[in-house]
């Protein structure tokens, strides 16, 4: 009974393996942010946000290859792309400060007022975040007196679990394999 309870608690404490966040949705705020920037409302009734610096969501647990999609919008003042990075989670307090990351997607956006979905993956991130370890998804915005980065709203991360090396077999199947 005690072991079952521990197992249940441990399972519930596991970080999520996927992400589905929209800056326009209440409660989906990034885990850390630099300074907020301009907000754009488009004629498609969509809201896109800019920042000066980094925003990130974490922790996520690596269970296999990931696909990242980001909904972006660019307009006449857009000067720079958005850099989406995977950051191995060593010190969570530094994710928006000085933890170096690895670029997985450079999003340039388009002028479509309903947003553009830009996707990368499936990609193997285990060289920087081995299976079972935690990582952050970070978006790097760049700003300039006369222009900003591409703006964004939603970001999604989907994971494809790697098959466990310990496969499940029935006793009959094992007997068949080793006959």
């Amino acid at each position, binding site marked *: 009974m005690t072991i079952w309870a521990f197992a249940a608690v441990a399972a519930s404490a596991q970080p999520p393996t996927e992400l589905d966040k929209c800056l326009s949705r209440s409660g989906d705020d990034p885990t850390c942010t*630099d*300074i907020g920037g301009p907000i754009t409302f488009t004629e498609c009734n969509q809201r896109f946000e800019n920042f*000066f*610096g*980094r925003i990130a969501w974490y922790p996520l647990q690596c269970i296999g290859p990931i696909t990242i999609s980001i909904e972006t919008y660019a307009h006449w003042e857009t*000067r*720079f792309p958005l*850099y989406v*990075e*995977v950051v191995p989670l060593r010190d969570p307090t*530094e994710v*928006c*400060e*000085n*933890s*170096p*990351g*690895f*670029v*997985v997607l*450079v999003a340039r956006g388009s002028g479509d007022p309903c947003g553009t979905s830009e996707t990368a993956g499936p*990609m*193997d*991130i285990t*060289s*920087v975040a081995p299976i079972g370890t935690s990582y952050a998804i970070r978006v*790097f915005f*760049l*700003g*300039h*007196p006369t222009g900003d980065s591409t703006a964004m709203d939603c970001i999604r991360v989907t994971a494809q679990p790697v098959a466990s090396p310990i496969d499940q077999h029935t006793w009959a199947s094992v007997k068949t394999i080793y006959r």
Partner: protein
Amino acid sequence: MRSVGLKLVVVVTIVTARLCAAQLPTELEDCAGPSADFCSDSTAVLMEDDCGETFYRHRGEIAWAALKNVGPVTISVKTLDRRFYMTFPLYVMVRGRTNPTDGTDCRTGMGGHVALVALGGQQCGGAWESVGPIDLARYGVPPGANYSLQCVFFETLPGTIFPGLEPSTVGFSCIRVTSHPLQTGDASWAHVKTLFR
């Protein structure tokens, strides 16, 4: 006696603060390598150039201690792009350090405004790229205020096909900031009276 001691501490603090503020440099000249004067998020990776010049790759940011804004500045960086595939530019950012808690020490991860996007010289020995003279007030640094410079580097996930040749920001060698102080002319009282007659 205690009051005198307290006053002494206050005076010493003010004098020290003024001396520190007065000693902030207004210009910068620094090159990557063993005697580099910047702080960084990651260790540098040496890139050899055929012409004997050395350039370094980084991940994250490198930054310098604060400078004082005494007038428009010209910012120049020497970079090298020797890759056959996609590379990222080097973003040079200006960050005002106008709040008392900002300090003047060397610190990365402070954010800021892009002042220069260096694409990297492809010729032997790299190339200098410059911007300026620029008015730092447009970057949130009023005259007399402190600011610092940061360079932002990007790099993709380590590749399995060509390890060590991941697309990354162009190689960095040197940075130079030259200041063009605003002139305040000396005038005699007679001259001032002439001007405002």
